[in-house]
């Protein structure tokens, strides 16, 4: 592939204050699957909110409060537009992907699970999309079933013979694994599941920043993601759900703003989505979240997808050529943004540490995916992951640093 065909996105570093600062001029940030850096537009949107349009939401009767409320609700509208939700009420602002999944597990699945029922997840799930289901299943005497993987890291759906059984109450899976990087066939799964009235939750934490998502097309029942992995702020995420699912869901958190009437003995819920947003709304982070959506939209998700995919493929191909280095999942035609690897005999912590000294930021560990690690027979891997601002020189730096690792520990 020629450099020009490859460089689909012009250099985005100028948009990111941290990456363009002198202090970090030698930084090759390849830890995007953990969290991404923030463009100036996101940072200033939040500062602007605090500096010129800050007030309580939903309750104030003075102009500033009305303006702040509009700002908050506009962020919801932006998010809805970004993932193709029909109505903005289908977007619940949460603290994170993790909270969103817990909300569905506790507030929706629990009341629907009978002893002997199944909830299906996959072998590659992040702890956040594993532990809440494990607990809820235990509580309800239901069974947590696991879709295992083929050697190449793809889902072994054939082996999951009871996946579409009458006992399955929910299928919860990631769109993209944060270790393997492959794209799961969520569309096809949703279609099959819908035919049997089995709801599907898609954990889009690793896909939403890199792949265009349209819930109208995907037709999943729940979709969850976090702002901080898509160039937005920490402390906020979103739960999208079909309106019928939201109507069925009991709120996990109770408090101000989510009830209509309260007496000593009873209470009645407010309308959706307020019902699921107990407590004072997280205005500034919602504004930053919307600014991140604007940033992505400004570049265009298809261009981002092509750029990140291209980088990932290049890096994967180069890494595969290194002696003593093993890619955890072979590059598939559906790889996206993430590569995990192993250097037998060298501990991933040491790899990441040396890479860090060389200015290459990657992550080593179990990546909150212990069920997957156990099945791979590993306790940790090293992971490089790409974002809009990465370029060929980041790959070059990664390769040079791996060379140093080999020399140091050979």
């Amino acid at each position: 592939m020629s450099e020009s065909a490859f460089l689909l996105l012009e250099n985005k570093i100028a948009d990111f204050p941290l990456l363009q600062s002198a202090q970090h001029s030698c930084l090759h940030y390849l830890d995007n699957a953990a969290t991404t850096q923030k463009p100036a537009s996101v940072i200033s949107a939040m500062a602007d909110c605090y500096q010129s349009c800050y007030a309580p939401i939903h309750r104030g009767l003075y102009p500033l409060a009305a303006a702040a409320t509009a700002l908050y609700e506009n962020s919801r509208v932006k998010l809805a537009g970004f993932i193709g939700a029909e109505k903005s009420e289908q977007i619940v602002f949460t603290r994170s992907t993790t909270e969103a999944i817990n909300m569905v597990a506790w507030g929706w699945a629990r009341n629907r699970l009978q002893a002997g029922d199944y909830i299906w997840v996959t072998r590659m799930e992040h702890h956040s999309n594993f532990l809440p289901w494990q607990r809820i299943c235990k509580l309800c005497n239901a069974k947590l079933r696991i879709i295992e993987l083929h050697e190449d890291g793809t889902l072994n759906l054939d082996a999951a013979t009871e996946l579409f059984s009458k006992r399955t109450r929910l299928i919860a899976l990631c769109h993209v694994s944060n270790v393997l990087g492959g794209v799961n066939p969520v569309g096809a799964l949703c279609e099959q599941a819908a035919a049997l009235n089995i709801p599907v939750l898609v954990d889009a934490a690793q896909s939403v920043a890199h792949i265009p998502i349209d819930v109208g097309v995907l037709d999943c029942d729940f979709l969850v993601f976090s702002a901080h992995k898509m160039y937005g702020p920490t402390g906020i995420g979103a739960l999208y759900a079909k309106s019928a699912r939201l109507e069925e869901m009991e709120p996990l958190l109770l408090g101000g703003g989510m009830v209509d009437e309260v007496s000593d003995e009873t209470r009645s819920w407010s309308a959706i989505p307020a019902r699921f947003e107990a407590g004072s709304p997280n205005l500034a982070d919602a504004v930053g979240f919307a600014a991140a959506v604007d940033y992505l939209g400004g570049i265009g998700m298809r261009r981002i997808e092509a750029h990140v995919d291209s980088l990932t493929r290049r890096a994967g191909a180069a890494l595969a050529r290194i002696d003593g280095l093993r890619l955890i999942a072979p590059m598939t035609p559906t790889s996206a943004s993430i590569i995990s690897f192993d250097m037998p005999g060298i501990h991933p912590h040491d790899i990441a540490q040396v890479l860090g000294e060389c200015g290459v930021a990657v992550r080593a560990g179990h990546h909150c995916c212990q069920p997957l690690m156990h099945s791979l027979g590993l306790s940790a891997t090293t992971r490089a992951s790409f974002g809009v601002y990465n370029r060929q020189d980041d790959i070059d730096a990664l390769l040079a640093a791996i060379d140093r690792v080999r020399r140091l520990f050979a």
Partner: protein
Amino acid sequence: MAKESFYSAVLLDHFRHSRNKGELDGADIVRRGHNPRCGDEIEVGLYLQGEKLAQVKFRGRGCSVCMASASMMTEAVTGCSKQEAYHLWEEMRDLFGDGNENDVKHPTNNLQALSVVREYPARQRCVLISWEALRDALRGL
């Protein structure tokens, strides 16, 4: 200071001297609208003559917007057919309902004093309480 006062003379007049306010004895149907969030409560009674709403009255308590809106509503729908009244409700819902869009028609003539409320989402429910009671009454006929 806000550019345009929320409290126009028309609105205040309807609040202070509400039209068609009083007991609802002998109404063909009575329905209630309320906002639990602020305790406001309006009852609307319809008096029919054939297909027409010969008289529409209300009683209850609420803020000035709530009372003025009820008063204006009774004026606006008296003499209308059921369909016409229902159509007016739909226009009001589009104007003051949740997630209302910007491309809606603004209210005509004597309902115009309420337009300013659209800038204050927190008050929109106040406008609608009496209209929701009207809607329920029309549906109940």
